[in-house]
């Protein structure tokens, strides 16, 4: 019994920081409709800033003042980010905002490295709360009890702010109808900035308050990200009580999981989320998203059309150049181009889902990594030859996508995106924690191509044939009746249904198809590297693909491929710098703000303006 209570107390204490961070994310989403991926970064900054203050401010007063100051400083950093990065993109499609916040993650990561160094920081213990108290014989840290006592005050202060102040009333009104609030004379820009300050300050507080328990390190941002998403989604986007209940639920489950199912601690959270969403699609306390609220903003989509004469010539010339390259290039170039081709296929498969299907998947790495792991496992345990493994990899990835897709497609919009992320994380945690089978963190090694394909040049040709073949197939499907049905389902589900298209079914097939294509890329990836590690399944991988699609241009058919080539090529160059994340992050933010049509879209506009391409209205 004592053990049981001690476990619950630990869970409640862990819920404290999680609640603060998650409620901040929830608030920001509620008003600005931005899913702030950088929220984990603000949490990390809170920990580092709090640590720095604690170094100079002594004693118990110093400790608690440092935590408050950390919240304040991080809130101000949030204001800066909001004004510089997000204000210019509020009117852009919401997915651009996601990419912009991802750029912010990269920038903050490197800035933190620059300021605080690469070593983990051990959090100072709270003065006066260092020891433990025995509750029914079980040791409970005093600081845990302090956290448990603190959370209701934070929750109460938030509740008061949201329900009793004019700012809170405006925030709730704006959550429902931003335009109307503006028409009543409220300057939304400042309301957004205010909410961003509050949300980021909460993240900062959360980061600082957990210092005595977890310290600070450079992986905190991504580590908490999936947890806060899970909390916000389970609780319901924009609901504060929901965030609290979900934070407690997840934290307590997690503590018990560590004791009873140590292999599954990471997966548990996502399983809970999936179960909740199946029964309550909008979270425990969430409201149904109003249809159209997340619709595309800006210019309507252009109809896609087959490539013109000029475009075909350019593509043929490019293919010719790729074909003769091994005669001229060194093996380094060939390896780089192989990497790029694999990545392009991966990106093109996501582009197919996202651009044509309007299905924003945050977890596409599951199918890339899934295909890769399928191939690697087959080779390791069954001695499967490469040829067969490359056939089975897309099948396995496609099957995974069909299973995951079946659940995910029950939801739409932000919830769909979160669910795809959760499934990807589920797969990642399985691979990561099931060490006996997958080698866990050590990965699977010694997976090489068959004898005939082991030369750099031969493998280059093999990769080119498969990747370009896959990309052509995706493109071909876009122009097929199936592609038309998919776009119809994206643009107007109801109208498509009324024309006799089973939209859910079409989307489901598209999900599986895109998964299989990502699986080919994953299979090739394993054989090109000779090994596979869980990081190929990580959120960061999924985001890579998302960023690429956006940089390339969502509304341009070539977007995935162009973006993939550009990013993978640029990465090869800029990762030579020490602070390449900073550069890449700034580049991403720059593209989002300056060229919101992406590279391919901007090139097309440019080509149209100088008369190289026909404009839509002339075509």
């Amino acid at each position, binding site marked *: 019994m004592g053990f049981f209570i001690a476990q619950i107390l630990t869970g409640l204490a862990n819920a404290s920081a999680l609640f603060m961070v998650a409620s901040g994310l929830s608030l920001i989403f509620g008003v600005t409709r931005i899913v702030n991926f950088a929220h984990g970064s603000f949490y990390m900054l809170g920990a580092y800033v709090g640590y720095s203050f604690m170094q100079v401010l002594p004693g118990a007063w110093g400790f608690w003042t440092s935590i408050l100051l950390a919240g304040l400083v991080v809130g101000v950093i949030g204001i800066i980010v909001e004004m510089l990065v997000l204000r210019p993109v509020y009117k852009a499609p919401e997915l651009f905002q996601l990419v912009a916040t991802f750029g912010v993650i990269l920038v903050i990561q490197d800035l933190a490295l620059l300021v605080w160094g690469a070593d983990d920081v051990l959090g100072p213990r709270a003065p006066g709360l260092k020891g433990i108290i025995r509750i029914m014989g079980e040791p409970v840290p005093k600081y845990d009890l302090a956290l448990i006592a603190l959370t209701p005050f934070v929750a109460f202060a938030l509740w008061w702010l949201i329900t009793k102040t*004019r700012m809170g*009333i*405006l925030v*709730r*009104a704006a*959550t*429902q*109808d931003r*335009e*109307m*609030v*503006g*028409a*009543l*004379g*409220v*300057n*939304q820009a400042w309301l957004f900035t205010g909410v961003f300050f509050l949300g980021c300050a909460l993240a900062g507080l959360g980061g600082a308050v957990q210092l005595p328990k977890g310290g600070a390190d450079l992986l905190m941002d991504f580590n908490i990200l999936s947890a806060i998403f899970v909390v916000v989604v389970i609780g319901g986007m924009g609901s504060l009580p929901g965030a609290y209940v979900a934070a407690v639920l997840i934290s307590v489950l997690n503590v018990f999981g560590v004791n009873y199912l140590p292999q599954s601690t990471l997966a548990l959270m996502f399983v809970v989320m999936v179960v909740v969403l199946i029964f309550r699609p909008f979270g425990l306390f969430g409201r149904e998203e109003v249809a159209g609220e997340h619709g595309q903003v800006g210019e*309507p989509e252009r109809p896609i059309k087959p490539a013109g004469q000029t475009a075909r010539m350019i593509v043929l010339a490019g293919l010719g150049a790729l074909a003769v390259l091994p005669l001229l290039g060194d093996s380094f170039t060939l390896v780089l181009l192989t990497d790029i081709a694999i990545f392009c296929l991966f990106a093109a498969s996501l582009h197919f889902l996202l651009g044509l299907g309007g299905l924003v998947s945050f977890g596409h790495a599951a199918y890339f990594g899934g295909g890769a792991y399928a191939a690697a496992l087959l080779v390791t345990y069954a001695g499967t030859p490469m040829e067969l493994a490359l056939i089975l990899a897309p099948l396995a990835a496609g099957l995974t996508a069909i299973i995951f897709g079946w659940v995910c497609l029950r939801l739409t919009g932000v919830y769909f995106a979160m669910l795809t992320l959760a499934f990807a994380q589920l797969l990642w945690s399985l691979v990561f924690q099931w060490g006996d089978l997958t080698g866990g963190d050590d990965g699977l090694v010694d997976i090489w191509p068959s004898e005939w394909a082991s030369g750099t040049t031969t493998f280059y040709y093999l990769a080119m044939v498969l990747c370009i073949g896959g990309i052509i197939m995706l493109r071909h499907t876009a122009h097929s009746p199936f592609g038309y049905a998919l776009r119809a389902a994206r643009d107007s589900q109801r109208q498509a249904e009324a024309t006799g298209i089973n939209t859910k079914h079409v989307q489901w097939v598209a999900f599986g198809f895109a998964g299989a294509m990502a699986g080919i890329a994953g299979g090739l990836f394993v054989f090109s590297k000779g090994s596979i590690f869980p990081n190929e399944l990580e959120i960061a991988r999924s985001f890579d693909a998302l960023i690429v699609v956006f940089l390339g241009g969502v509304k341009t058919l070539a977007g995935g491929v162009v973006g993939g080539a550009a990013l993978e090529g640029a990465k090869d160059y800029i990762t030579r710098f020490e602070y390449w994340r900073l550069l890449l992050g700034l580049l991403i933010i720059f593209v989002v703000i300056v060229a919101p049509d992406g590279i391919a879209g901007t090139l097309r506009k440019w080509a149209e303006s100088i008369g190289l391409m026909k404009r839509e209205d002339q075509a």
Partner: protein
Amino acid sequence: MLEIKGINSFYGKAHVLNDLSFGVERGKVVALLGRNGAGKTTTMKSVMQLVVPQTGSVAFQGADITRMPPHKVAKMGLGYVPEERRIFTDLTVMENLEVGRQPAREGTVTWSEEMLFDMFPNLAERRTNRGKELSGGEQQMLTIARTLMGNPSLILLDEPSEGIAPVIVEEMVRVILRLKKDGLTVLLSEQNLHFAQAVADRVLIIESGIAKYEGSLADLQANPEIRDTYLSV
């Protein structure tokens, strides 16, 4: 007080307003009449800059407000009451009014919650009810009351009689006449000619975004053929 000059407004590629010009004098009630899809709501939104006219200009109290952000337009004293009411359904009546609150403005009535509750006694009993718990008529009153909290000098009423019971329509008439007596200028859009006849000084008939007739209410009544051409269904 309000001068609209040659505005052209679009939704995407659909050309909704076509060189529309008209004015509203201080203290008058002007009714914008026309069938469904004639461009009445777009006119209202174009005045408020919720839809930004591609060409032409909107001037309010002598100042050009074209392309101004809507919150600044509201701050100048233009009150907007949308057709779909758009009250905040999760907020209470009191909170809805709070969202509309703006500082007092010279030359207009400064409204308080109590004054509004005097004018809309039904709302007074429902102060702490959430927006979604109100009836259609109560919601219509709330949306007007909320806009009045901003102490506007001109109010844009988009189809105030739509979808509410006849007894409430009568109350609307009473409210508009009372506001006019207080010196408020009103531009309202209507499909219901009887409602317009009860409150308006002047009418403007539009069809397909083009002004077809402008004149006093008396003239319109004297010209039944105009009424039949543009208004009868």
